[in-house]
């Protein structure tokens, strides 16, 4: 197989309970799984059966526009699966074959799926443009689930999935390391502000459980520090959890079973500290998984789920912010804009933190993806990802000179600095929204009235 990523090995797949399927039974197994998924979700079969091949999605897709590879055109990408589905599961495809766009399952089928379903970032921009309301992301995600069940998945995703199952966070950090890192960060905060700002871990009987992206403990530290400062100033009774130190849920990208299990862990973590209010940090797909998928995954959600940016925007008048001398823009993470409708809060916050706020064009639900979403951050896909980031680079280029791109999502934060550098905009810094709040916040101990 000629794949853009390193495929997971047999023994890694074992940790997810997956057995690789032999060559000889691949067709049969694929058809079984297609049957399973068409019964699993309405979206899968309707969206496979409604495309009129009008081509309206061509202009919507950053992956197609960046790579110029026909199979990355959303209708063509979905067509890789649509044609097989038509052949074995629709009347017209069984009867009229090629005439109705149906194709036989052959040796290349799974190769093309494995390659092109992982060149889509599930940003859902094509769904905004499709006159038939087709969300190609739904087809891609189902396709990835089917591939995983056949034993085909990127090693990168399988490793992270395993980390989530075993440790509750993407980075595989264990409790002692979490406690160590947090006390180190508390020292940093004390050095910077002269105030004792706590980053509690597993504090019992807390009101708020905060789930940051686990990368905030090491690489995007400023984001977590910003949140800690805000919680301190607002007097929030909050804690991190060593059971689940993660907003992300990689199950969304390729495995419904991990999605369910990791969501269950969120409930366990909240119950362990007694939290009735769970706040998620800056992670795009994680917020979509929590807000939109939790109820379907494990039934009624027993706590109030909120995004940190909504929470901070709501309490913005209580914060004393100075405007930082920056010309900044906001990158709408696809999972915030199109995925969950989190559009106004980040704008409100960034505007309050910087001297000059400029909008990208297009923005909000029409914003282009950074090119790093849905678990494509593996190193071996770097060159392809830079192509995926072409439209984003063009959008940012139009705003130069620009000091800061606020991207409140851990995947965007990993991808955008590389895009900026690749397209010659190394002087523009990319970071979170909470980073800005942390820097703009005037830290004075609350005085008793």
């Amino acid at each position: 197989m000629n794949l853009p990523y390193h495929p997971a090995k047999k023994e890694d797949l074992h940790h997810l309970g997956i057995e690789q399927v032999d060559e000889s039974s691949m067709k049969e197994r694929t058809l079984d799984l297609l049957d399973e998924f068409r019964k699993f979700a309405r979206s899968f079969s309707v969206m496979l059966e409604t495309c009129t091949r009008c081509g309206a999605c061509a202009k919507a897709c950053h992956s197609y526009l960046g790579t110029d590879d026909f199979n990355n055109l959303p209708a063509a990408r979905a067509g890789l699966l649509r044609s097989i589905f038509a052949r074995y599961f629709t009347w017209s495809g069984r009867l009229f074959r090629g005439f109705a766009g149906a194709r036989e399952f052959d040796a290349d089928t799974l190769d093309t799926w494995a390659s092109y379903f992982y060149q889509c970032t599930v940003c859902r921009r094509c769904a905004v443009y499709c006159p038939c309301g087709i969300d190609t992301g739904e087809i891609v995600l189902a396709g990835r689930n089917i591939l995983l069940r056949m034993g085909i998945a990127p090693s990168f995703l399988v490793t992270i999935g395993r980390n989530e199952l075993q440790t509750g966070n993407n980075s595989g950090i264990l409790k002692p390391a979490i406690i160590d890192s947090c006390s180190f960060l508390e020292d940093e905060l004390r050095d910077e502000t002269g105030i004792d700002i706590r980053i509690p871990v597993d504090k019992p009987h807390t009101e708020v459980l905060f789930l940051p992206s686990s990368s905030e403990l090491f690489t995007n530290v400023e984001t977590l520090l910003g949140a800690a400062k805000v919680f301190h100033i607002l007097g929030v009774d909050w804690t991190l959890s060593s059971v689940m130190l993660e907003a992300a849920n990689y199950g969304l990208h390729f495995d419904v079973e991990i999605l369910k299990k990791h969501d269950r862990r969120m409930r366990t973590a909240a119950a362990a500290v007694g939290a009735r209010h769970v706040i998620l940090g800056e992670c795009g797909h994680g917020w979509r998984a929590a807000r939109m998928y939790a109820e379907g995954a494990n039934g009624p959600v027993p706590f109030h789920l909120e995004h940190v940016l909504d929470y901070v925007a709501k309490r913005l008048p209580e914060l004393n912010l100075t405007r930082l001398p920056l010309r900044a823009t906001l990158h709408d993470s696809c999972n915030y804009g199109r995925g969950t409708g989190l559009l106004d809060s980040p704008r409100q916050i960034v505007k309050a933190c910087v001297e000059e706020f400029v909008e990208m064009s297009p923005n909000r639900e029409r914003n282009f993806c950074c090119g790093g979403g849905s678990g494509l951050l593996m190193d071996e896909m770097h060159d392809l990802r830079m192509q995926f980031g072409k439209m984003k680079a063009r959008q940012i280029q139009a705003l130069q000179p620009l000091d800061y791109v606020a991207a409140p999502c851990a995947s965007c934060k990993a991808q955008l600095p590389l895009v900026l550098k690749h397209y010659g905009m190394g002087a523009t810094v990319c970071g979170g929204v909470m980073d800005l709040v942390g820097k703009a916040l005037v830290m004075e101990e609350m005085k008793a009235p």
Partner: protein
Amino acid sequence: MEFLLGALLPYTACAVFISGTVMKIAGWLKKPVPFHITLFPAPRNTMGKVAALAGEFFFCGRIFREDKALWLRVWLFHLSLGLVIAGHVVGIYCLRDQFTLVGVSPGTSRFMSKLLGGLSGGVMVLSLYALLIGRIVNPEVRKLSVAEDFFNLLLLMALAVSGIMMYLPGFQADLPAVRAYMSDLIMFRSAALPDSPMFVSHFLLANILLLYFPFSRLLHAAGSIVNRAMLMEAPPASPTAEGAAPRSRFAARRVHAALHAAAQGPVDRGGQT
């Protein structure tokens, strides 16, 4: 032959059209929607949803915003198709006298009916032609297209052309005879096919379309609405309201397991007095 073409075919075609389409849509709706796949920004209330659906259904709003040339082809075709279908129902039933209801003379009504019908048919043929050319000229769309896409356009075009041909001298069908035939068909009375070769060809093509519709991509008419409804679902609120029905079978199993576990656990007497 008369029986085959004039009775068996139309009844079979209608039965296949109705049962096939209903079965297809029911098959879709029977399948669960395990997760919220709302695409934001989504309309918040029913009125908003209806307005958004209507905007798509009658105006193709999404294509309008993005690609005016594609929109013009698509919209003109669907508009003329709608007018032609409505015109068939009203025009045949009223024998082109429908506009007397708004106060014009029967002569004027017949003229208006013919003009509007001819015009709609003409626009339909032209827009279908434009859609066909668009499919061939745009390299991306050509590469996406399969034989069915061209067949659908050509079938509709043949249907429209045979309909317009009946306006030409020599090909005209006797409208009262057509009406009598249609009403006999609808009332399940034995009916004689009007003696007009052009009408018979048009009628034959219409039956082929009905037979073929539920199996073809023409069903996007229904699929689009089913899709859009999923993308407009109201997002979940948290904490989940008491007594909300479980969203998926696996969520239901979790709920059941939790209840079961609670029932089996030690009895909590803390609240009792």
